[in-house]
């Protein structure tokens, strides 16, 4: 509230000096805000939901504004698992998120894309192209090795053929510790 008041006061002062000057001020709290997007794929592989909740929780605790983007079914799985929002902060529709990024309305610091099929590769490539910020593909499912070999664009990869047991991927995510970046 204090920053907003100061920003408006400064803008008013500048426009008084010269009405044609358009001033963009980034207040300290906006400039320092870290935003991460977790992009969920099709929720048919069980490990995805728990890993998204886990990573969202770690990123949230590290001070990131954490946005989970997914299909309605994927978001419902998260919402039911965390009804009071202890681990999650914000959820968005996947298509709406892509639209916001394409229209440069959603600045992000980094993103994580959960991938277990060809569609997931498409979304990871799209996130890399639209944000031009670090993208990590978290690859899982029985075709993890094949999917990994098909990634030809720049991104970090954390992969394990996990289906039901999230622990191997959890360990690999902890080794990468993206929340410390």
């Amino acid at each position, binding site marked *: 509230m204090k920053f907003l008041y100061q920003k408006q006061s400064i803008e008013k002062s500048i426009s008084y000096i010269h009405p044609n000057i358009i001033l963009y001020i980034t207040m300290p709290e906006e400039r320092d805000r870290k935003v991460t997007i977790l992009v*969920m*794929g*099709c929720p*048919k592989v069980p490990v995805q939901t728990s890993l998204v909740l886990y990573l969202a929780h770690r990123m949230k605790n590290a001070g990131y504004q954490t946005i989970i983007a*997914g*299909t309605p079914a*994927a978001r419902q799985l998260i919402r039911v698992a965390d009804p009071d929002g202890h681990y999650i902060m914000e959820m968005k529709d*996947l*298509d*709406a998120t*892509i*639209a916001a*990024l*394409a229209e440069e309305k959603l600045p992000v610091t980094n993103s994580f894309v959960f991938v277990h*099929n*060809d*569609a*997931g*590769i*498409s*979304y990871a*490539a*799209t996130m890399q*192209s*639209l944000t031009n910020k670090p993208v990590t593909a978290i690859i899982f499912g029985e075709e993890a090795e094949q999917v990994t070999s*098909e990634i*030809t*664009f720049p991104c970090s990869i954390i992969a394990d053929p996990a289906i039901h047991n999230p622990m191997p991927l959890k360990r690999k995510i902890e080794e990468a510790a993206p929340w410390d970046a």
Partner: protein
Amino acid sequence: MGCLESLPYEVVLSKISFREAREFLARYPEKYDIEPGYRMFDIHIVGVPPIRVAVDGDSLLFPFTKPCHGTFLIRVPNATDEIARLRSRA
């Protein structure tokens, strides 16, 4: 934001990779590469760049990805406005 279901589309190929879509579209003489996020028919296209689209008469062919169903190659007829927009980019 649009929806594919609002378009009179036809599925040309289903459950394909982007490489397969590109290879299939190579047969069309008029084709363009678009970047991920490019807006067509009020839909933001996702995919592995370069995303190839092709013109066939007044139809536009392009890959469309659904998270749970993979990538389809779609043909949308009477796409003259979108075709004109693509041509104006070239």
